[in-house]
């Protein structure tokens, strides 16, 4: 079983790397009647309940995308999303969007207390929300402009550009960076 899965993954890699940008699609994706994602690989084999994941969701979201089976075994590796035929790329992007939930914080409205745990009220691209921050270590500066906040439930919030925040938000965030 294990070996089968692996060899397919490797073949899938090769195919996708060779054919990703040109000609016929080496695999197909669709949702079945139960809403599960189904992959038909280059050999026509069907894998039900697969998952599309990004390898570098923060540093390089459009490159290095893997389709894994229910056990987490890699079936297909897509080196570059932009090299795929546009309909397939769109389809994969849609799947990724359904799977990923990382609200982007646009404004920080309020931080309840200067000591943790503190409650944050924020405005995100998905609407207003509030969350509890357990420790100041959960605010990570990704690079000079971006920060990732993990709340008490493990939900991640991204600040796409610190410079773009308004003055109040920046002041509230300052002490965590």
């Amino acid at each position, binding site marked *: 079983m294990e070996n089968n899965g692996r060899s397919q993954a490797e073949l899938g890699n090769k195919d996708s790397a060779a054919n990703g940008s040109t000609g016929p699609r080496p695999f197909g994706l669709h949702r079945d009647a139960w809403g599960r994602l189904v992959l038909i690989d280059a050999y026509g084999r069907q894998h039900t309940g697969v998952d599309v994941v990004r390898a*570098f969701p923060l540093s390089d979201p459009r490159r290095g995308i893997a389709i894994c089976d229910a056990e987490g075994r890699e079936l297909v590796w897509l080196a570059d999303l932009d090299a795929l035929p546009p309909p397939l790329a769109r389809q994969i992007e849609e799947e990724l969007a359904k799977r990923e939930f990382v609200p982007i914080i646009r404004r920080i409205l309020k931080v309840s207390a200067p000591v943790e745990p503190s409650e944050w009220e924020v405005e995100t691209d998905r609407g207003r929300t509030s969350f509890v921050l357990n420790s100041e270590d959960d605010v990570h500066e990704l690079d000079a402009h971006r920060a990732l906040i993990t709340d008490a439930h493990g939900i991640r919030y991204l600040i796409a550009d610190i410079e773009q925040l308004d003055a109040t938000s920046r002041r509230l965030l300052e002490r965590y960076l």
Partner: protein
Amino acid sequence: MNRTDEKWDALPGPWRKATASLLEAGEVLLAWFEPDLDDHLHYARGLVVLTDRRLLSCSEPAASPVGCGAVRWQSWPLNEGSRLRTDEHGSAAVLELVDGSGRLACWHYTAAQTTAAQQLVQKWASWQQSQQTGSRSDGTLAICPSCGAAIPADAGRCQSCAAGPAKPSLSALFRLASFSRSRAGLIVLGFLLTLAATAASLVPPYLTRPIIDDVIRPWETQHIDNSALALWYLGGLAVAAIVAWALDWAKLYVLAWVSERISADLRAKTYAHLQRLSLEFFGGKRTGDLISRISNDTERLCNFLSINLIDFASDILMIVMTAAMLLWINPLLALAALCPFPLIVWMVARVRGRLLRGYRQAGAAWGAMTSVVADAIPGIRVVKAFAQESREIERFNASNERVFHAANRLNKVWSLFGPTVTLLTTCGLLIVWASGVWQIYLGRITLGVLTAFLALISKFYTRMESMIRMGSAVQRASASAQRIFEILDKQSNVPEPVRPIHPGRLQGRIELRGVRFKYGTREVLHGLDLTVEPGEMIGLVGPTGAGKTTLINLICRFYDVSAGAILVDGIDVRSFPVEEYRRNIGIVLQEPFLFYGTIAENIAYGRPNASREEIVAAARAARAHEFILRLPCGYDSLVGERGQNLSGGERQRISIARALLIDPRILILDEATSSVDTETEREIQAALENLVRGRTTIAIAHRLSTLRRADRLVVVENGHITEIGRHDELLGARGSYARLYQAQMELVYGRDGNGK
């Protein structure tokens, strides 16, 4: 003949003549050494001389100086059956001469003489051998791997590279000057600004005299209206205040910038130096203390440089300028006012030493306290598992108390000293008042002079006081500086070669030639010889403490050999620049260490500019790719001290990917699979197979099954190589490997079957 003469020169002076007279014609001196203990292990000097015919020995008679004829020589003829051997346990050792009939003589010596004694033994052995085979192989001169100079075969260490005498310990604070040289321009600017600001601040007290004498007094006594003059003076005061403000501002900014810069440079240099020190240094240091030195002590120095030193400089200037002004206005009054000054200086001198000692103690106590924390936090699981929280708290409290007491001792001195200085300065003021009023009474000075004087002298003494208070800051800073320079003065035990040979990309042929290594006085490797061909995989087996890890540390050049040499591609590893050499080595350790950062960064640790494709390829080969994809942020997940929790096997596979990515020629696996379960081990084994391919590999493993791919197995026992061969050969030989293997098989398939 020439070489023999050189040997004579090497003999310590007193012995030289005495020995020369003893030798017969044609007798060749082979080696000598000085035992430094007598039979009762009391210190006593002696000499053992080895020639091609006999062993000569003499001991220093108790009271008479060496060489005055009172020494008694003993001699033993040497023959085929004679053997010399050393027996070392602890710091006192013994050299024995034995033959077929028993022990003929023995000499005791301390660990300081170990190398010389061993050389003597080796010399004899090689001499005997060369006599038997008829060859004279020991005539070759060794070449210093560092500088390329010839080393006399028995000197062991290159004379031209030997560490020079320790630097004279200048005042540590003074040495800070070397760090400030690059900022000299700004420092001079700051100093000029200080000078100007001080001068500007002296204008107001000086102006009080004409204001009182030329404006107030004439109005009070004779109703003369000098308001125009008054406006001038007031304007002058205002201007002086504004100029002083501007100058102060500029001065503070410039000097604060410079001092912050200097202390940042110092911190950077200390840390860089620390990183380059050999592992041996870190073995003997407590992490907390090092952290405290880098953070606390540099911070203190920065504070001192930025705040205190500026104040100090401006205080001295102020004091000198005020004193000059006082003397200029009225010398007599000035002398009276300055009466307590010498007394204060004397007090400062007395207290200084005490403060310095106190601050050094306080710094050490602080370092110890940090160490307790730095010890306990990483070991918190053990602490909790053994329910020793309260003991850890006590341990911390104890060191915290020491910090308190160290500070308290300082405060005792300080609390008395500070007010005493205040008292003395008040006395000074009192003297000025008394003598000033007396002189006004006599009509020698005006009221204006006295007022100006009082304004100046109170400035003088305030400055004086603050300068004296600074004394404590100076001592504190110099204690800090000492602690930092202690690190900066440490030389790495793995020195960079003087004339480096650049390794480039190595082939990976490793040769050990008579490798010996000592930890302190304990020798753990007793002359290993081994050659590993490029691409060969060697499995090191043997009981714990046999010296396997030490051997690996030597190959990686974490330490340098005590004697012998390690050659890679035929070149002594000490000839390579350390960093360039290590770039050829990949290591996978038993306890993989992940730095705080993303998984991708951790994999690319050895090659930060690796592309994402390369990182993924390495992770795939290390069988880490799929579990990484399962993490919420994939390769961008944070790991390390504050990051995602990974299992031991996962961490191990990341560290294998790390080693794969640098594509090393030499691969070291130190118990890479021993801390994981069998299933994970299989995964890691598969990952390792990718890693090992085409590289010279040296692997240590306790589970012998791990080494089934090894081309040769090397059994190390008690610092010796006892067996070398393939698995089945060694099994056939029925030696220690066979026993080890048997024992493990019993453990796995043993009596009850539930052992691992």
